């Protein structure tokens, strides 16, 4: 598999609109760069290949995250400067998913209790079968409440930071 094939495959990771706008141009620039590097040492060519692959993967992930609905901030990874994000929102989907999972666990435990109660207890020496899961319910609820509280406290801290120094720094300059 040639580097050109790899490059074309990785380009497919980008959203279609992005590929439409920049795909051909990126490929053209990559071909020019490849021609430049063709006569260089194997080590230089390897570094070039890795840089291109990493750049494409990182760029594609960034573009995919950028078009996620409800996201305000740009996805940005910079190794050369501290890049601040332009906003923070508590992920509502996380809270919704946690609630759904918790509801599912509670329903499953209740269902298990009903099944256990409906079973005939033919062996009196053993006694009635007790639902073991019922003992798990309080810790699960406690754990969920703890996670909610931790999430809320984390969000509050980040919100407070945004309202104070970091937010002012972000809005005062022309930082992008």
């Amino acid at each position: 598999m040639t580097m050109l094939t790899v490059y074309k495959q990785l380009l497919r990771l980008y959203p279609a609109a992005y590929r439409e706008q920049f795909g051909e141009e990126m490929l053209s620039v990559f071909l020019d760069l490849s021609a430049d590097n063709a006569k260089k040492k194997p080590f230089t060519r390897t570094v070039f290949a890795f840089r291109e692959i990493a750049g494409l993967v990182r760029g594609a992930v960034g573009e995919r995250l950028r078009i996620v609905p409800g996201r305000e901030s740009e996805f940005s990874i910079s190794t050369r400067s501290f890049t601040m994000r332009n906003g923070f929102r508590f992920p509502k989907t996380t809270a919704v998913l946690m609630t759904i999972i918790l509801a599912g666990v509670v329903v499953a435990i209740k269902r298990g209790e009903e099944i256990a109660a409906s079973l005939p207890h033919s062996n009196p020496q053993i006694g009635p079968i007790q639902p073991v899961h019922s003992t798990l319910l309080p810790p699960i609820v406690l754990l969920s409440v703890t996670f909610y509280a931790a999430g809320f406290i984390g969000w509050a801290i980040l919100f407070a930071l945004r309202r104070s120094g970091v937010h002012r720094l972000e809005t005062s300059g022309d930082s992008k």
Partner: protein
Amino acid sequence: MSEPVLFILLGLAGQPQHGYSILKDVERMSDGRVVLSTGTLYGALRRLLDDDWIERFEEEETSRGRQAYRLTPAGRCNLQAEIDRMKRLTRLATLRVAAKER
């Protein structure tokens, strides 16, 4: 503003350029310290286009009809503001360091 973005804008401040020449110009300006990949370059160009700091046009002089980029008035204004900010910072840093050395 990150260093690569600053170099890209500086590259376009002199004259319009297409992707390949921007990459080479950034490498030259930074003495080989900043070498951008195509993915990084076009990610930055996309953001600058979205913010109307640069604009895209088709080069007429070349046979390939390549897309080129140039600064918009807003982009030039923002670049100048960034340069002014860096000048102030450099001046302050120089004064502080000099005062400490005395």
